[in-house]
């Protein structure tokens, strides 16, 4: 049993980064995730583990520092919120193209533009469909609790190094700002392992290591793209993660929701049972990419309809529709632009959509 603390999601991210043996954090303040760097600074990570902490001049500076430090094969992490993540997208594409491991946290707020500092889930497209230029994928984790904010930092680094791929932890202002109990894993010493591909100085007879995403020859670049696509297919085979809630027995409806919306939906399931005797199951994707297609398809076969609940105008619903095809009715419900839907909002939305109330 690890140490139990009461903490904000943002603080849990930071504490987990120190415990996982992260070598460097580079970031730039933005609401609602500034507690990540503030917590790190207060903890003196340079004394606790020797971790480097640096406030960059911008999100662009921060992500490029990540690029440089990740090239050395180190465990590196940054965090930001939606507009800041948009600024990082160019370099995230480079990192994916150059196949560097790193963990990027997005505590999503409402957009578009400067939008609002209130919670949102409208960065699904940005996280899952690419975000930057070119054909690439991020492994996207969607924590729904402060506990998972910590757990996903550890999981994120494991996956990032397993696939040499950036991992995005897509959280939101609710999970970032709320406090819950969190049980931390025991600290892991910083790794001394040398990655064979890292740019550490060309030792002896070893061939030089070059970190680049450039292939001027389109045919070579196509080969590189083939290789990346194979890697993404392997992620789809091996790394799908999800939670099923109330999915045993005969279901009337299925809700698909992640992060904060999944938590809200659990309350809705209670309302539905108490008020209408309806049995609603919840499928919570824990990985947004790879998306839990098989499981959703399986559950879709025995329900009247599926409701996608997301604090957006309807982004994840596109993947659900692609998964289940035209035979199953799929609808979206979500408050957006920074408004957090409460359980009653969602329950009323459900009744309006499916029960014509």
């Amino acid at each position, binding site marked *: 049993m690890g140490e139990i603390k*009461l903490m904000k999601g943002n603080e849990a991210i930071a504490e987990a980064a120190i415990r996982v043996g992260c070598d460097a954090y580079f970031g730039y303040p933005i*609401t609602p995730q500034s507690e990540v760097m503030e917590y790190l600074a207060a903890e003196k990570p340079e004394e606790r583990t020797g971790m480097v902490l640096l406030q960059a001049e911008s999100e662009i500076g921060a992500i490029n520092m990540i690029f440089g430090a990740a090239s050395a094969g180190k465990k590196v992490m940054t965090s930001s919120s939606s507009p800041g993540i948009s600024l990082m997208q160019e370099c995230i594409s480079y990192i994916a193209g150059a196949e560097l491991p790193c963990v990027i946290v997005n505590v999503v707020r409402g957009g578009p533009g400067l939008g609002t*500092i209130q919670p949102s889930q409208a960065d699904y497209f940005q996280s899952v469909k690419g975000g930057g230029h070119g054909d690439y994928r991020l492994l996207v984790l969607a924590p729904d609790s402060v506990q998972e904010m910590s757990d996903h930092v550890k999981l994120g680094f494991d996956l990032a190094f397993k696939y040499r791929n950036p991992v995005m932890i897509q959280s939101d202002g609710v999970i970032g*700002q709320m406090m*819950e109990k969190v049980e931390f894993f025991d600290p892991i010493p910083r790794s001394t392992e040398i990655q064979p591909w890292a740019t550490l100085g060309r030792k002896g007879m070893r061939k030089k290591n070059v970190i680049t995403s450039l292939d001027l020859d389109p045919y070579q670049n196509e080969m590189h793209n083939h290789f990346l696509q194979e890697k993404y297919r392997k992620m789809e085979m091996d790394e799908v993660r999800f939670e099923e809630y109330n999915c045993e027995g005969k279901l009337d409806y299925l809700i698909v929701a992640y992060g*904060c919306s999944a*938590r*809200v939906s659990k309350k809705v399931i209670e309302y539905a049972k108490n008020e209408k005797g309806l049995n609603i199951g919840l499928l919570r994707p824990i990985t947004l990419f790879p998306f839990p297609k098989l499981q959703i398809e399986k559950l879709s076969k025995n329900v009247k309809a599926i409701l996608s609940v997301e604090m957006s105008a309807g982004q994840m619903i596109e993947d659900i529709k692609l998964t289940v095809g035209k035979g199953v009715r799929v609808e979206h419900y979500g408050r957006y632009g920074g408004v957090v*839907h*409460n359980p009653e909002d969602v329950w009323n939305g459900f009744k309006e959509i499916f029960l014509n109330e």
Partner: protein
Amino acid sequence: MTEELIIAGFGGQGVLSMGKILAYSGIMQDQEVSWMPAYGPEMRGGTANVTVIVSDQEISSPVLNRFDTAIILNQQSMDKFESAVKPGGTLIYDNNGILNHPTRKDIKIYCVEATDEANRMKSPRSFNMIVLGAYIKIKGFLKYENVISGLKKSLPERHHHTIPENEAGLKRGMDIVKEISI
């Protein structure tokens, strides 16, 4: 047992820290807890509220619109949250600055004159402890010693010298809270 609570007032009244002490007290009692603040641009004197849930079961939604209890510390919050108390629920308020008092007949209403009492005690900082004392007295599900341990956990070491003053506030709140009949 699940307690779904909102504390609402001005920034600077100790709304968030009160919620934090309650969350810690819940942990001391082996309960599940969540603490969800309404956050906004940094501004002194703006409105502040926090949703706290204490439960012996896994907590589903940290975001709520109906509450078992509302602790209300200014008029804006009264206007917004009186109607959000579940029928049969509890409303606790400080009457300082309240012009439109609560009117619902289907809930229990308590008043704690925390601002005045804190001034009488010459300890304005004890304000939120007086309110908290009123709450734990009325709801009764948190053991006093767990609240004290929760208080200790939520305060940084350098502020532990204020614990006796805080305890005095808690006890005063327990003594002076009174039910209002509509």
